[in-house]
């Protein structure tokens, strides 16, 4: 059986994914190996796919604990819009981990829309219902403006400095 891996990039990509995930039959894996051992182009494609998968698999929200406060920060520059994958992850991180004292670092957020605000408020309600709090850190001017216009800044406290923000949650519970 002979397959032209160069004919269709989507087909080749499916082959690469199958190979990396060990889903190819022994025959197909052998066929693919015999091909990439002699083909620089396809080998580079395997490497590129692996880097891409790695990038896609990286968490979009970084989470760390300072005392009993959970500090969340977006791994990359982002916009919290209806279509943002980060919004979903942010909500999941807070709900699944059941964090109640949460500080969200918005330094990498350049824009926010009503859906983004809605998610922030949902997270805030979740924290408050569980006797906690949700506060914001380092919001950029455009984000700050939206928070101010919508009066959300009167509900969600905002800070410029992480140490001050963490101190504002009070002493860690024993």
């Amino acid at each position: 059986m002979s397959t032209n891996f160069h004919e269709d990039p989507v087909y080749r990509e499916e082959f690469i994914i199958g190979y990396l995930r060990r889903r190819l039959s022994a025959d197909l894996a052998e066929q693919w190996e015999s091909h990439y051992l002699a083909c620089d182009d396809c080998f580079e494609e395997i490497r590129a796919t692996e880097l891409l998968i790695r990038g896609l698999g990286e968490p979009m929200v970084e989470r760390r604990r300072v005392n009993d406060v959970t500090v969340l920060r977006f791994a990359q520059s982002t916009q919290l819009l209806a279509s943002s994958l980060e919004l979903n992850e942010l909500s999941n991180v807070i709900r699944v981990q059941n964090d109640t004292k949460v500080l969200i670092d918005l330094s990498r957020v350049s824009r926010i829309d009503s859906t983004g605000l809605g998610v922030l408020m949902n997270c805030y309600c979740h924290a408050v219902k569980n006797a906690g709090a949700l506060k914001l850190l380092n919001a950029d001017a455009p984000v700050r403006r939206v928070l101010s216009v919508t009066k959300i800044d009167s509900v969600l406290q905002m800070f410029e400095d992480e140490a001050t923000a963490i101190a504002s949650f009070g002493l860690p519970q024993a």
Partner: protein
Amino acid sequence: MNFSGEDLEKLRPKVRLKVCYDVGFFCPDVDDIVQEALMRFMVAARDEKIHNQAAMGAFLNGICRNVVSEYRRRNMRDEPMPEVVPEPPGKSIPEAELFELRDAIAQGMEQLSERDRRVLRAFYLEEKSKDEILKQTGMTDENFRVVLCRAKERFRAIYLERTQHPGNSRHSGI
């Protein structure tokens, strides 16, 4: 058929991937197996045993398979039967190299639009078929191919940049 030292170094990462696929990425003897396979291949080339250049990949693949089989037989003879450990998905790039590439990967991810990331996550991580993605997103086949090729091109450039400047990497595995 003559192979220069440069040709050999081009083959090394490919053979390494093939060997890792067979013996596992964490096998401590990967480099020895790769070296043995390359040596046998060079000897065969020098003795003009590779008659069909088009089948060079299959020939090298066969050598790799033999060396791996011998390695396994030797191990089974010398040591008690190893505990069967589930094999993780195949990887072509060592974890340490991926760690060093994390900034470049993050940069590559930042260049992707929200829609592109959503589509790529569906394809690579959720392993949805092209048809499913087209149905869900309403994209055309052509758009999908553009998204895929554009992303692959970026990540291929990241990989090539790294290999063309090996001084950036302390290891030779990549």
